[in-house]
């Protein structure tokens, strides 16, 4: 076949280039999508980008209805994703509140409840039921949860004073001790 050389034999180079570029583009796209899915949540050690959280009225953070995450530098932040329809969240709700009442007086720890795709009415029922007093707000347009790439609720993120993520808890806590342990590590 190398000997007989019929006219118009090969594919024009530009078509070859177009085909390969197209194919490569497609594969890269799928690869990126796949790697994003395989990535898992934001990993400990990463600096958390700034985001805004608007609170439910009655659940503000020291009187402010909206905060930026960067405002909380210098404090240890416990960021808890939950939802009122989530059964496992109920397991840890009381423990979280207990931990909050213990650490609130120190003024060095902030608890933030991020309500993941929920209705406000149901969220309020839930908050009241478990007597939660720390700041809570809705994850509007799921921006925060998409940033953290949460896999479900509940998930809790512990951020240190410099705004660096230190620990991720997937699923409910086994008890209040587990929460204390993580906070104490960051307070040192």
């Amino acid at each position, binding site marked *: 076949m190398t000997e007989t050389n019929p006219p118009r034999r090969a594919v024009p180079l530009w078509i070859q280039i177009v085909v390969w570029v197209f194919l490569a583009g497609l594969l890269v796209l799928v690869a990126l999508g796949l790697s994003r899915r395989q990535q898992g949540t934001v990993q400990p050690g990463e600096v958390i980008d700034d985001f805004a959280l608007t609170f439910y009225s009655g659940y503000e953070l020291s009187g402010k209805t909206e905060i930026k995450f960067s405002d909380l530098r210098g404090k240890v932040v416990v960021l808890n994703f939950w939802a009122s*329809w989530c059964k496992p969240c109920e397991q840890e709700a009381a423990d979280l509140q207990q931990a909050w009442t213990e650490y609130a007086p120190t003024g060095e720890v902030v608890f933030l409840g991020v309500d993941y795709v929920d*209705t406000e009415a149901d969220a309020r029922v839930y908050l009241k039921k478990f007597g939660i007093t720390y700041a809570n707000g809705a994850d509007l*347009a799921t921006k925060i949860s998409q940033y953290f790439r949460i896999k479900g609720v509940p998930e809790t993120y512990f951020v240190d004073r410099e705004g660096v993520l230190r620990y991720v808890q997937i699923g409910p806590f086994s008890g209040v001790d587990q929460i204390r342990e993580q906070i104490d590590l960051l307070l040192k």
Partner: protein
Amino acid sequence: MIGDLRLEIEERKNELKTERKILMATQKNTNYKLLFTILLALVLSISMYSFASAQGPAPTDDEVNAIAKKLFCPVCENTPLDVCPTEACRQWREQIRQMLIEGKTEDEIIQYFIDTYGARASGDPPNKIASYLIPVTAIFLGTALLLRALQMWKKPKAAESAIPAGEAKQVHQDEYFNKLEDELKKRK
């Protein structure tokens, strides 16, 4: 009658929006038409069905479902909200009902869901142009390519065009049969 009233309100609101942004108006108008048909259907169905709730201002399940059909469950992915059986979805349908009672229009409710739960809650991708433009362009490209190829293949044809002219003289019946036989014979 309820429908008519609501239609008027909707109309006025739409006019306001039209003044604000011309581009949006076209979109709203199509939605408006859709809404009109839905409301018409609802008015018809309400008058047809001996449903007790139809008299009061409380929206029927059908009204709720008509809107929920256009939304997707924000947690169980790719499940339309009207058929999703989970507890969370029941809460969201309740939310729609609540908003209907408050007099919110369908567009407002859908927009609220997008704002609160992210673009994923709507079945229509937010960027209409990108979502439709790319496949349409690809299809046009394909068509152009095929037509071009057909043109290229067509060139040497002068010799063959004489044959069918001769065939056409034959009686219709025989011609058909011959053609059939020919094709059957040609089959290898």
